[in-house]
């Protein structure tokens, strides 16, 4: 560890948080249908879509209608994407001549991209055609992100409402978020990525004759365009198997910084926008602070773990100062640490180092960040609504302590909302621990493991955490392209997305019809350090109590094995 490394980590985080303010202000305006400087170009496109969809916009939607639209859209996306992948051999722009994906892989991949997970059971450069990358995967990078932000926007309206059923219109939110936020920013970022070195090509590959006379086939894709929305929409699905560790996806420290910032900034910006829509800017800021503190702590922990003596290097008496297995030289430990914290905190799931080869505690921290529920700052939209669920539980706990009906942002929090909140939160241990428990004893599942001992358990636990949290990163040694893994991980992704978002929308519906109360002397303030501390505590207890026993058998026991191995090699 050194000063430069810490400075890089802190500065990267600071840039993400500071940029979130102007973006959050802009996002609030987009949520509320306000004017933007893109109106002259985009208003006509908006009207075209609403006309084609046959929408009557003046009514708005109740929470149930909003939820049904969200589900219907996800189903349509799943069907279209499944068909594109399954039959890519019959579609244009398949210069690689790839066959259609198998049914279980098409199922897994379609769910994965529709739920904003972007788990990849396959090696993209040997599996997915250029057309599938673009029309199939790039478009759902946008749409799953926009759908998540839409749910967050409706939750914000619910807290702002005073005895109203109207949560806004899902189709309008989806359209405006795609057109006014994700598309223009992605376009700018994609051009920057190309300027900094990322390829953007419709060719399948180029053949090089190397200096020493070998042949090297260099796979190419429309990389920059997908990389931009991949991070901005917290998707994380790579154009290449090595994801953002591949020099084409992330050629240098400059692209690395832009990618880290763009995978977190909209998550923070959602909290800022939420605060503005609800007219509680300081409460929005408190949520941002909780999110950023977790990322900082996790990045520091990963940095510390990765600069401890690596067992294999120590045993060989090589320089063991940094665990370089599965890392790129241009990034080293600090860039890897802040990326790992940002991508696991954000449900992004893109990686710039192989998490399977991280030191035990670093891999454990990555897993723990996912298990917190993808709320720090979480996926775009989904992070904010997950954080609000935890905030409701936090004020409920505070209310129990003083014996008063808790309130959050001027809304009474009652039994019904807490039940929905618990329903949402408990889906995580159910899916993660349930599936992991079964997989740990099933030979058909265990065949996929690449590493023996506690690390094998970590591979299982990480896979179901990643799928349920809609993260998508992996301990990638796991050979997941089998019917067992494809189907169970697909189900975990569905549960993590919809069994969480639907109760959130129910909370929104229930909050919206309540009267908006003014703060009194007895109201527990939810914008100050006391609440921040309480919320951090609740998040840690929810994550810690539920997952600590499982983590103790995986990364934690492996950490002590590593200490022992290093000590023995002296």
């Amino acid at each position, binding site marked *: 560890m050194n000063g430069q490394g810490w400075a890089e980590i802190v500065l990267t985080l600071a840039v993400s948080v500071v940029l979130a303010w102007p973006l959050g202000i802009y996002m609030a305006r987009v949520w509320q249908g306000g004017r933007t400087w893109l109106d002259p170009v985009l208003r006509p496109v908006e009207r075209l879509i609403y006309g084609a969809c046959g929408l009557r916009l003046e009514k708005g939607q109740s929470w149930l209608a909003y939820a049904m639209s969200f589900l219907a*859209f996800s189903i349509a996306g799943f069907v279209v994407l499944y068909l594109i992948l399954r039959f890519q051999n019959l579609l244009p722009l398949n210069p690689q001549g790839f066959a259609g994906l198998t049914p279980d892989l098409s199922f897994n991949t379609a769910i994965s991209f529709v739920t904003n997970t972007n788990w990849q059971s396959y090696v993209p450069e040997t599996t997915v055609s250029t057309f599938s990358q673009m029309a199939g995967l790039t478009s759902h990078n946008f749409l799953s992100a926009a759908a998540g932000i839409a749910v967050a926007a409706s939750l914000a309206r619910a807290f702002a409402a005073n005895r109203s059923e109207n949560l806004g219109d899902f189709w309008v939110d989806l359209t405006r978020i795609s057109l006014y936020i994700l598309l223009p920013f992605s376009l700018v970022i994609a051009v920057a990525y190309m300027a900094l070195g990322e*390829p953007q090509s419709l060719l399948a590959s180029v053949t090089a004759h190397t200096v020493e006379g070998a042949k*090297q086939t260099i796979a190419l894709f429309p990389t920059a365009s997908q990389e931009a929305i991949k991070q901005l929409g917290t998707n994380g699905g790579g154009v290449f198997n090595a994801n953002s560790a591949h020099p084409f996806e992330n050629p240098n420290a400059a692209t690395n910084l832009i990618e880290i910032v763009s995978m977190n900034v909209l998550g923070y910006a959602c909290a800022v926008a939420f605060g503005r829509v609800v007219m509680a800017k300081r409460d929005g800021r408190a949520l941002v602070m909780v999110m950023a503190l977790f990322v900082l702590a996790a990045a520091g922990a990963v940095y510390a773990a990765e600069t401890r003596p690596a067992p294999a290097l120590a045993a060989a008496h090589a320089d063991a100062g940094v665990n370089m297995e599965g890392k790129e030289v241009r990034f080293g430990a600090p860039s890897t640490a802040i990326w790992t914290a940002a991508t696991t905190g954000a449900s992004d799931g893109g990686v710039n180092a192989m998490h399977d080869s991280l030191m035990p505690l670093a891999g454990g921290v990555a897993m723990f960040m996912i298990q917190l529920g993808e709320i720090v700052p979480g996926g775009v939209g989904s992070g904010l609504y997950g954080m609000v669920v935890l905030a409701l539980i936090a004020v409920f706990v505070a209310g129990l302590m003083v014996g008063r009906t808790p309130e959050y942002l001027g809304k009474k929090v009652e039994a019904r909302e807490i039940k929905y909140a618990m329903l949402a939160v408990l889906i995580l241990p159910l899916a993660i621990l349930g599936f992991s428990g079964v997989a740990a004893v099933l030979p058909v599942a265990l065949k996929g493991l690449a590493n023996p001992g506690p690390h094998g358990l970590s591979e299982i636990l990480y896979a179901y955490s990643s799928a349920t949290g809609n993260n998508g990163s992996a301990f990638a040694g796991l050979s997941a392209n089998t019917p067992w893994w494809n189907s169970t991980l697909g189900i975990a992704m569905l549960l993590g997305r919809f069994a969480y978002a639907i109760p959130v929308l129910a909370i929104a519906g229930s909050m919206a019809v309540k009267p908006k109360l003014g703060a009194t002397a007895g109201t527990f303030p939810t914008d100050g350090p006391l609440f921040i501390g309480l919320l951090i505590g609740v998040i840690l207890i929810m994550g810690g109590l539920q997952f600590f026993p499982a983590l103790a058998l995986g990364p934690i026991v492996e950490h002590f094995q590593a200490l022992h191995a290093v000590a023995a090699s002296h």
Partner: protein
Amino acid sequence: MLAQLRPAFVATLFFTLLLGVAYPLAVTGIGALAFPFQAGGSLIRDAKGQVIGSALLAQGFSQPRYLHPRPSAAGSGYDAANSSGSNLGPLNPDLAKRVAKDTDALRGEGPGPVPADAVTTSASGLDPDISPANALRQVNRIAAARRLPASAVEHVVSASVEGPWLGLFGQPRVNVLKANIALDAAFPAAHP
């Protein structure tokens, strides 16, 4: 729910065309006009115009007169159509065996401990860079193979070191392909 299916499918198809076809094609067009080198994969060509590799990707070097890249787990090694790390856990016995073997082979090559990046596979298997320590430790071998004084080779290698971006982001590094091209350019007599 049924009433929602029309907007659901219309929106999906519309956005597939806009975001999945028009957007990537627009970016491709901008790339072809404004950044043809980068958009094409940062390809390096020899004097005859033949592609010899990408400046961003590792390729295999095993002759003693060249800098050697990091070991690769991509395909059968440096496979730029099959990127991959080893995905071996930190305590995996296979990792310990591989590192021990590679370290032993490099121990006599230069002074000091063998640098970590010389005996570990990168995340992509295509890491184009090595650490400056790793590069400088190979100078004696290269100089002997090219029958040059070590200081001459060291001069070229040192000139190939790139520092962190803005002095802060990322790590110092040597691009192996570019440095080897620089070596061949500086010492053409050594070329067969």
